[in-house]
């Protein structure tokens, strides 16, 4: 049995609204399937599941807003017996009946991989939390979704909250810091309908929180270097001539690939600062800062950029931009980025020294490509030049390594055919 929880889709996400379930009890799911659509303050996210198995029970109904970490659904993982889903809505006081039954023998119809929305009215799940415990949790900034109740019928009481407040926070990759809860009633207030979210205002708030936290907590250092792009641009022009229009590459793809390969070489730039220590990323997932037309920005990840070829990166980028504009992203894209790249070239500026997106430890900025006089080998010529910058977290790395990192990007861009 596994719990499917409201994921943290970004360092500063505290609550999410389940807009739609794409599965219903009894449906088989496999790792990576999109099972629900969740609205955060920033965007509408398609949430993937990380266990394979069969959905046993959906706990949070559509339209309900719950804190990160709240149980959304229960999954019987592969190898376990199928657990009979309760037919009727269980009363809040009751525990879900756990009846281990063999798979139904009569109709061994293969469980569907659900793709269509299944409007299953889920059982209301009302947490028992005493008013005092609720108030204390707000004062002590305890996330009630993580507190185990020991009071009558499992109610969370004052003692439980005080105990939780004393315990060290549980570290997770995506949610490295204990979060103050703004919503005092996790899973306790079923909302009748999906409250429309003002994404613009909400996003400014989220960006404000993340950026303020970054500048408050992260001791940034900044490095910049000019990179001669003549070889890269020449190669790209030649390469694009060979390609059909729809498959042509943007120079950003070269930059992303170079950043990813450099991050592989200098791993201090790639990962997270969590609980006072650097945790290297398991792969290089490059977050790409994409501005949203209505305002605000989001930096979803392209996975494993270092292992993708340029065409694949281009396809991913195109897909990502399209979905950002449409406001539909996947949970893994939101949560997984290990380093972020921002490019303000299109806006005409030559350099950008960005603010690191916590808990990441580095942000690479690119300005626009401009023709500049460039001295090389005793000769001066006009070259396309781009300014690459690094905002580094001084807790995780030093300027020396940061300089090596930028130099590596420069070196890689001089041999574009190898990217």
């Amino acid at each position, binding site marked *: 049995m596994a719990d499917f929880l409201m994921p943290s889709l970004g360092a500063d996400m505290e609550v999410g609204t389940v807009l739609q379930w794409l599965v219903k009890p009894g449906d088989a799911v496999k790792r990576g399937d999109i099972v629900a659509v969740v609205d955060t303050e920033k965007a509408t996210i398609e949430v993937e599941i990380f266990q394979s198995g069969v959905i046993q029970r959906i706990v949070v109904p559509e339209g309900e807003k719950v804190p990160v970490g709240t149980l959304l659904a229960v999954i019987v993982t592969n190898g376990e017996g199928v657990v009979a889903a309760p037919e009727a809505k269980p009363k809040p006081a009751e525990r879900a009946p756990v009846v281990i039954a063999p798979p139904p023998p009569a109709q061994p119809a293969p469980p569907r991989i659900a793709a269509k929305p299944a409007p299953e009215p889920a059982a209301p799940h009302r947490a028992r939390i005493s008013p*005092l415990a609720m108030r204390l949790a707000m004062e002590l900034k305890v996330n009630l979704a993580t507190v185990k109740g020991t009071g009558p019928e499992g109610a969370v009481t004052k003692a439980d909250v005080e105990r939780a407040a004393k315990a060290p926070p549980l570290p997770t990759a995506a949610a490295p810091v204990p979060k103050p809860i703004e919503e005092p009633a996790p899973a306790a207030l079923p909302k009748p309908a999906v409250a429309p979210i003002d994404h613009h205002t909400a996003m400014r708030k989220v960006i404000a929180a993340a950026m303020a936290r970054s500048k408050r907590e992260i001791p940034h250092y900044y490095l910049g270097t000019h990179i001669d792009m003549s070889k890269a641009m020449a190669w790209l022009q030649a390469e694009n001539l060979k390609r059909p229009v729809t498959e042509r590459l943007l120079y950003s793809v070269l930059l992303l690939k170079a950043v990813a390969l450099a991050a592989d070489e200098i791993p201090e730039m790639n990962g997270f600062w969590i609980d006072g220590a650097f945790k290297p990323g398991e792969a290089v997932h490059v977050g790409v800062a994409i501005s949203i037309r209505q305002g605000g920005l989001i930096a979803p990840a392209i996975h494993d950029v270092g292992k993708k070829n340029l065409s694949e990166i281009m396809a991913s980028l195109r897909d990502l931009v399209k979905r950002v504009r449409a406001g539909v992203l996947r949970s893994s894209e939101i949560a997984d980025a290990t380093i972020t790249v921002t490019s303000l070239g299109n806006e005409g500026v030559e350099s950008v020294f960005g603010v690191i997106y916590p808990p990441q430890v580095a942000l690479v900025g690119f300005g626009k490509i401009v023709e500049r006089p460039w001295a090389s080998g005793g000769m001066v010529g006009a070259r396309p030049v781009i300014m690459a910058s690094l905002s580094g977290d001084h807790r995780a790395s030093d300027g020396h390594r940061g300089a090596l990192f930028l130099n590596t990007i420069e070196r890689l861009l001089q041999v574009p055919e190898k990217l």
Partner: protein
Amino acid sequence: MTPDAQKVKITYREAMRQAIRDALIRDPRVFLMGEDVGAYGGCYAVSKGLLEEFGPDRIRDTPLSESAFVGAGIGAAMNGMRPIVEIMTVNFSLLALDQIVNNAATILHMSGGQFNVPLVIRMTTGAGRQLAAQHSHSLEGWYGHIPGIKVLTPATLEDARGMLWTALEDPDPVLIFEHGTLYNMEGEIAADAGAVEISKAAVRRAGTDVSLITYGGTLGKTLQAAEQLAQSGIDAEVVDLRTLRPLDTETILDSVVRTHRAVIIDEGWRSGSISAEISARIMEGAFYELDLPVERICSAEVPIPYARHLEDAALPQASTIVATVTRMTGGHG
């Protein structure tokens, strides 16, 4: 009370008698009337000896008509006297309900403030003496519903001794409910014990883990339960309401704010009771302080039985209080 103050041994019955006697001596307008209060000495022997001491003008036996003698008391009070009217039990007071609710409680209002009714009505209430359903009920909560009267429930010797005089000084009607099981309660009080104030509840035992809120006949059982709970490490606070109308909400909430848990012990029936009112006020005033739902221990919703074991089973007992609090707290403070 100073440590060297002289103490005297006294019963609740004697304390009440002293209070009446004191009032008769201090104020010539005071007189006592009711069924069998004179020659017989009162059916609970509270007024024993008073007829001999004060004579038939001030200790007046009445016909068996609650409506008539309560009405006469109202008239006397309106005309400047300070009558103490004794009704045998709260069950019989229902025969005078019209006089109490429609007249005593309303005349000040109906006369545009011209006439006060400085009347005191004493009556016995409660069960526990095998007097069966027509002499055992606890209806003081009903009276607590009525604006225009005050409802006192002395549960200690000091209050039995001291509430009457303060009630007589009040310009409006005051009802005093004496729980029948208390008359034989014996203890020591200061020899110079006198009038007490009647507007505040009292914390009879300070504690930190749970507020046990009660009054009258169940105060003793509640204190007993608190001592038993203390042995298992649960430190209960016991609040004696003393006055059911007006309720001292402040003292109740002050206690609950400190303990975060409340149990109300009320010998009345649960439905529509004073315990329901208290529970509601706690919810209104201290919702965010509550760590557990408010609980109530009340009498079984049956006419109080005659048979001893059934009567015991119907009433709140120290053991039920202990069991309830233990269950609520999981056995620890």
